[in-house]
């Protein structure tokens, strides 16, 4: 009987101590982790929307899906473009992109790769500037296309990475799918409307970026 009480106490005390330690560490670490994610997101948005100084988060629920776009504005509050995430399967796992689209919904501003698990040295060359630069100013009407082995001929074409057609194709498909969704669900006037100029000190909207 005594032994059972001892076992019980052992586990209770260890469990309680563990809980105390973890909640303490979590209390310190969680804001930092959130800040890291926030910073990462912000950097990606500003990369794909050059000239943006701040962004507003626009949310819409379409069916089961929650669409989030980040409307970039410059220092006067004038819209620069919209940024949004584009996820989809690549060769080995998810390819997560941040896509920047201009306010007229005609051209891409830039594309940034947030996460990818493609083959090192082959598919992961989608992260290289040479590949990403192809998307700057690329036309999205009727849709983005890729061609192989040759230089692009049309304003809506990019050249696929040699030997990594599947990864290149996945990027193009992700962009097309995401662009289509954003264009269909966010009317242009929402995007072109001017916003209040961002405050000088800290970006106001960044707090609810999640």
């Amino acid at each position: 009987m005594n032994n059972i009480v001892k076992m019980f106490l052992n586990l209770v005390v260890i469990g309680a101590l563990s809980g105390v330690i973890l909640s303490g560490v979590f209390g310190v670490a969680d804001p930092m982790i959130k800040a890291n994610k926030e910073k990462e997101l912000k950097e990606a948005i500003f990369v794909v929307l050059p000239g943006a100084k701040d962004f507003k988060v626009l949310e819409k629920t379409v069916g089961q899906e929650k669409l989030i776009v980040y409307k970039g504005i410059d220092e006067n509050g004038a819209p620069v473009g919209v940024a949004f995430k584009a996820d989809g399967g690549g060769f080995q796992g998810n390819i997560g992109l941040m896509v920047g689209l201009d306010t007229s919904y005609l051209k891409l501003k830039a594309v940034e790769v947030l996460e990818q698990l493609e083959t090192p040295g082959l598919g992961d060359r989608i992260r290289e500037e040479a590949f990403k630069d192809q998307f700057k100013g690329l036309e999205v009407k009727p849709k983005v296309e890729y061609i192989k082995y040759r230089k692009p001929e049309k304003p809506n074409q990019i050249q696929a990475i040699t030997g990594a057609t599947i990864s290149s194709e996945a990027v193009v498909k992700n962009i097309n799918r995401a662009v289509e969704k954003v264009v269909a669900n966010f009317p242009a006037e929402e995007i072109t409307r001017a916003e209040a100029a961002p405050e000088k000190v800290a970006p106001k909207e960044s707090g609810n970026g999640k």
Partner: protein
Amino acid sequence: MDQKTLDTKEIKTAPTPEPPSQAATKLVVSSSPHFLNNESVPKIMHNVVTALLPATAASVYFFGWRALLLIIVCVASCLLTEYAFQKKRNKPIKIYDGSAIITGMLLAMTLPAGFPIFGAVLGSVFAIGVGKQLFGGLGFNIFNPALLGRAFLMATYPVLTTTWVWPRTMEKAVDAVTAATPLAMAKFEGKLDVPLMDMILGNTAGSLGETSAIAIILGGLYLRYKGYINWKLPLGYLGTIAAFSAIFWLSDPTKYPSPLFHLFAGGAMLGAWFMVTDMVTSPVTSLGQWIFVIVAGILAVVIRLFGGLPEGVMYSILFMNAFVPLLNKHTRPKVFGEARAQKV
């Protein structure tokens, strides 16, 4: 030709040493017990080398002297690696048995003509060193060494192993710098209109020895004539590829390539005649051989049509190589009375 399939009787009589006469060579079938009999090894191997000569000649014709250089480099590195391992392990030096020459030639056959020399050396060292000698040398390797070397190069230099050049014979007709194999065109661009005659002759982009189907078939028929290969292995493999791909082709001929395309494109011919038939890495028993070739054939088509890679012959054969010990064990014909004894 008096070659028969293996049955129980033959297995039991096989270990008896046969006089090295014409009759003996005719009776050698794909079976490891025979293979350890050293007397016949060099003879078989040199005949396989002879059988590879048409494909070698075709590769030089289509891709120029660079092809010959690659073959020589691969053969030389394979021989050197074999020699180094045997020397280091204090084993008798048996590089003249020709098995390393075949590995080198086959490895070179699977490489693009523009493949760099250092890569060819690396692949050869891996094929012989890791693929063969680490397992204990000829007869003990689980995987076909040449294919293992090729798979290693594929993972090591994914860009270089898929950077093809056009054959000299059609250089002027094409403006693009980098060539595409018929399989890659079918997979990534939906182009199914490569002339069949070009693929049979070898007038397409691809690996050195894989492009010319006719040269490989010639070599394969020579081996068959000499009695070194069992008809079941190559024909079973090719037949499965044709039959299985026909199902898809009939369902939608505009989307899926025809069975003939599958047979003459890529490495199907080379794999069927020279790699599936590898005596060390294919099953001994008749049932085992059927399972081996049918599953490998289905796998090759599945990878080609639905996998991430345009070509699936290499992985299909390597994959099935891994099952050979298991197939041999479970498809072994029962010795008379054995079944009953086991039931108790």
